[in-house]
């Protein structure tokens, strides 16, 4: 359980990690005694693109759950922008700080149209009253059209999201992430279920986002081809901790990594 004296301390002065966009320090999460994350530590620098690989059950999704407020860690620190303590915030507060997420299982609003899904994701004031009185400006309309083009759904704005194919839902969700215009983007297996062409296009899109120093990206992926295409620093997770970190070639040559992937 959490240490009371630690809880009582105001965050900020005690823990700070200047020059990082995401700072995860010895985070542990247990489910009924099973440690899904085991003293996990990870640092992402502003503007960085990072890929995370690891066998099924390594804790990749759980790590994203902790960063986005869905799961509270049993212990450890999670800081955004070097000083904001995420472990005490709700999902919506974290989203409004500038952290966006694409889920492993595509989750779009099936009873709303493609356009409406993007409109809900649009970056704007999101309190209840502003939402009630919201009117789409020409500029915002233009932005939605732009994203519709980027994700290849230009001819389907009025289609119900529930009627899209699996791959299109993935794209729509990526579109929703773009609409939010966040500083830290977490993508959980974004190319699962995509064709090779779609996978390639997604890699291009991610590299494009990476060009803007305003964006920091964390991409979880199984597809080694895709990870190679991103050409970014790779972190290998295993049993809830970091097993190795470095270039893709370096981690692939790492004996511990080879054992985890091939040794069983």
């Amino acid at each position, binding site marked *: 359980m959490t240490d009371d004296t630690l809880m009582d301390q105001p965050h900020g002065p005690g823990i700070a990690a200047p020059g990082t966009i995401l700072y995860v320090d010895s985070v542990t999460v247990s489910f009924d005694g099973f440690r899904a994350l085991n003293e996990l530590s990870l640092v992402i620098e502003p503007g960085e693109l990072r890929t995370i690989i690891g066998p099924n059950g390594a804790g990749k999704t759980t790590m994203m759950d902790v960063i986005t*407020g869905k799961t509270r860690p049993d212990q450890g620190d999670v800081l955004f922008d070097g000083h904001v303590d995420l472990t005490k915030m709700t999902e*919506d507060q974290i*989203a409004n700080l500038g952290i966006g997420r694409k*889920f492993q299982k595509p*989750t779009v609003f*099936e009873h*709303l149209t493609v356009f409406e899904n993007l409109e*809900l994701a649009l970056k704007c004031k*999101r309190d*209840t009253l502003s939402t009630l009185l919201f009117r789409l400006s020409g500029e915002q309309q233009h932005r939605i059209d732009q994203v519709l083009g980027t994700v290849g759904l230009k001819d389907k704005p009025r289609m119900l999201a529930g009627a899209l194919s699996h791959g299109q839902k993935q794209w729509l969700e990526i579109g929703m992430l773009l609409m939010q215009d966040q500083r830290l983007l977490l993508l959980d297996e974004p190319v699962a279920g995509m064709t090779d062409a779609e996978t390639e296009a997604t890699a291009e899109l991610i590299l494009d986002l990476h060009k803007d120093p305003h964006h920091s990206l964390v991409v979880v992926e199984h597809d080694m081809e895709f990870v190679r295409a991103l050409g970014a620093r790779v972190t290998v997770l295993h049993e809830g901790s970091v097993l190795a970190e470095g270039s893709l070639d370096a981690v692939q040559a790492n004996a511990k990594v080879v054992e985890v992937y091939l040794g069983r």
Partner: protein
Amino acid sequence: MHSLSHLFLNPGDRRFWAGFTALGVLFLLLVPALNLLLPADSALHVPNYMVTLIGKYLCYAILAMAMNLVWGYCGVLSLGHGAFFALGGYAIGMYMMRSIGARGVYGNADLPDFMVFLNWKELPWYWLGFDHFWFAALMVMAIPGALAFVFGWLAFRSRINGVYLSIVTQAMTYALMLAFFRNEMGFGGNNGLTDFKDILGFDLSQDATKMGLYLLTTLVLGATFLLVRFVTASKLGRVMMAVRDAESRVRFLGYSVTGVKLFAFTLSAVLAGIAGALYVPQVGIINPSEFSPANSIEIAIWVAVGGRGTLLGPVLGAFAVNGAKTWLTGAAPELWLFALGALFILVTLALPKGLVGLWAGLRARVTEKSND
């Protein structure tokens, strides 16, 4: 300006205004005309009792629209809406009790009869202000609204969802029923509030007053229609539907699900309170049985039968189910609860979108046939 022209342009909107106008003509013009202008022996004459009965159904329709806002659009199955309806009814009932003045059985100008009977010497503090109509009218909205706000805040903040929320709202209305049954509460106990004489100086036994209440109810239903439409057609309406379909996903987009649900729940409770306040002068009594948990379940059934998540569905459902209830409780009262249960099962299994869905399905089939 932009928003108004936008409302009139697309075909869905034109359908809405056509339906809205048709309902307006039916309830605001046709029913009063058939009542007032036709001789009593005419086959088309609408008798006075029927006007009051329709007025009662219109109150149920407002209540059903309120329920639909929070359940049909936002996915929060409140089974305590009967409580908000009853509280609105009690608030206006208190005003009407105070307007009786010295005309009660005991001739006491300062206390309602039931308090004299209980040997009370002075009016409890929470009755103060209810001699003014404006105050009572405010309380009709403020009390259900405040209760819903506090209750909802506690429940939604702790993420009490689905069947758990349904259970705690049932418990809420049940607790209120037990409380209002107690004489010491000061709301007339078992008997509730009744023997009203007039409202705003209009004699409640007069046909003209009854017609006035009927017309007022119709106008309020119309206003409720426009309000629900405004909310559900807004971006907030789409967020509500998103909450209904994938609540946790909405949070990750930065919306406060607690705030959205609280808005829908509170607004819905205020509308339910208004419905109750229109209902009580027309039926002449409000007592604790209005809080009974079964009443709140019935409201959900009206909405399910009519079609949840649709604008017109709740109105259709309220009329259809209550029409059947009026008829059956006359013909074979012991069968009503079975019929209601059967109806609920039928709708759940066979008509997930209710009467509105059935109609849309039939229309689609006819168009298909004529295209062959």
